[in-house]
């Protein structure tokens, strides 16, 4: 519930995505919470992977970090597109009232939020990395 409140606030108030009744349905079905958990935790996870699992001198340039961020964005776009779609298909017994532009708009806005969280986590995660603490930019 908390994540649903929090993430709906992020998407609707900060990133200004408010398409009624699509947004209300997302909120009612707690899909903001699900997408929020996936987006925020995967942003952390991909940063951890980059800074502590890969952690290689030859893979520590800003574009390498951006590449991993790109993979993260693709996952978030797919999650923000298909999770609501599956839920609404189930909710409306196969007669989903929303078209693909609704889902695509939401998933693209979520991608922007995902990138913001990817940058946010980077600022906290990278400090203890041996080989990439200066990536994507020096302290």
């Amino acid at each position, binding site marked *: 519930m908390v994540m649903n409140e929090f993430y709906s606030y992020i998407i609707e108030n900060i990133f200004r995505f408010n398409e009624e009744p699509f947004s209300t349905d997302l909120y009612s079905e707690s899909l903001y919470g699900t997408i929020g958990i996936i987006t925020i935790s995967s942003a952390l996870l991909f940063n951890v992977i980059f800074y502590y699992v890969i952690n*290689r*001198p*030859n893979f*520590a*340039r800003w574009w390498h970090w951006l590449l991993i961020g790109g993979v993260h964005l693709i996952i978030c776009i797919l999650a923000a597109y298909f999770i609501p779609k599956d839920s609404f298909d189930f909710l409306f017994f196969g007669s989903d009232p929303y078209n693909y532009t609704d889902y695509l708009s939401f998933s693209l806005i979520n991608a922007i939020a995902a990138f913001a969280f990817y940058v946010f986590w980077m600022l906290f995660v990278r400090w203890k990395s*041996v*080989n*990439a*603490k*200066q990536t994507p930019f*020096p*302290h």
Partner: protein
Amino acid sequence: MEKRQCKANTVSSLNLNTMAKLFVFGIGGTGARVVKSLTMLLASGVRSNYNEIIPILIDPDRAGGDLNRTLKILKEYWGIQKELQNFEHNDFFKARILTLSEMISRKGGNTNVIDGFKFELDGVQTDSFKDFLDFGTLDPNNKYLTSLLFSDANLNSDLEKGFKGNPNIGSVVLNQFTKSDVFEAFARNFEEEDRIFIVSSIFGGTGAAGFPLLLKNIREGKVKGEHFDFLKNAIVGAITVMPYFKVAADNVSEIDSKGFISKTKAALHYYFKNVTGNNSVNALYYVGDLVSNEYENNEGGNDQRNDAHFVELISATAILDFANTDSNFLQTLNGRAQNPVYKEFGIREPTERVSFSSLYDETSRLIGVNLTKYFYFDLFLIEKMKNETNHPFASAYSNKFDDNFFDQTFFKTIVEFNKSFRIWLGELHRNKVGFSPFNIAPITNNQNEIVDIKTDAKSIFSLVNGVKEKKNWNPLVLNNYELYISELNKAAEKVGNTSTSKRFMGVFSQALTQILDQKIYS
């Protein structure tokens, strides 16, 4: 070389004598070249029980190529080491090399002795030996006697180029050394725990004459009429380098290597009575080689630039062996060594190309890891350093390894010193017997002088001859320079923030210890 092992103390057993000093007299061209090898070993981090080493080079040949090359690297070492004092994370340039005058002034002594690592012999700058003797003012009887002792060639010899293989000239000219202000300052500041090591060749002019003369004066303990008991009872070591090269036949030159062996025999006979026979020296090291290499015949001057030789490197390890030998085994009483020791050096088996695996374990342990560390330090500097400044070890700290640092004197001096290190390795590699611990190829100029070396290997950790790289077939494991940089990054965290020069050396020193442990030596 005889197949006997040099009994060196292991590094782990060292008990650093922080206050005492080791005076190293390098006499003649061989003396200078041995001191050069010693400097390279100390730069690489080979440990000496004596943390302060004072080299004093004695050579009348002021323009001598070997002398001046050694002086250059001594000054560079001095400049580098000055920046690294009291820094525990660094092993390179650990021992302090200082001049006699610096040591005296640090003790608060008031002296006008300016030595700059070398002793300036008076009267040899512009004079022939005849002028040095004031031959023209001698009475007829003394003139006849002098003419009996010295040939016309001897008398007309230009002293500025040294004694050209004539110890009879050297013994006269060098006798002034002990009457000089420098020797007096040395005697006055010599302390109870200090030691002396004398490096000389036995088959030339300067070393063969200078060694017994210097030793005699030390054991007398008298300088300008004043008695110096610590000097008289000093622990004295020496290495007498026997023939290990010959020079090309040249009718014009006064130097003829055909006489090297007979001179050696004569000198050894003299030593038998006056050096070893009277227990003047506490530890005497002998080293030599089958004379299979031939140098150009240069009487002296800038042209006398012999390639570095394995025998000189081993002579340098004798200095360290002496420094690391416990004083209980080297006692002196009334100016006489109580239990003098005599040592020879040998390798496992005769070979044209000596590598670390050709050395016995103690010698290999003493120099192997450290020389390898320094080799890889230099390799990174020339191959990668300026293009890898984006990594944390270089850029994540307030004192960065950036263009500003590369423009500083410290870094430039390291670069200069390392070039000498590479040339030294190249010369050791090219010489006969060759010392080739690393897979390198010398680069020469038009005069066939080695000006640099190059390496060519798929994996940089396969460059140590006779030692197999420890492979890990896991494709995710770091290798080559990626491993190197990763270890530099780790080392940088350990070293932390300190002055840029200390951080620079500390990071490389710490990282290379780990790298060598992972990839080359266990």
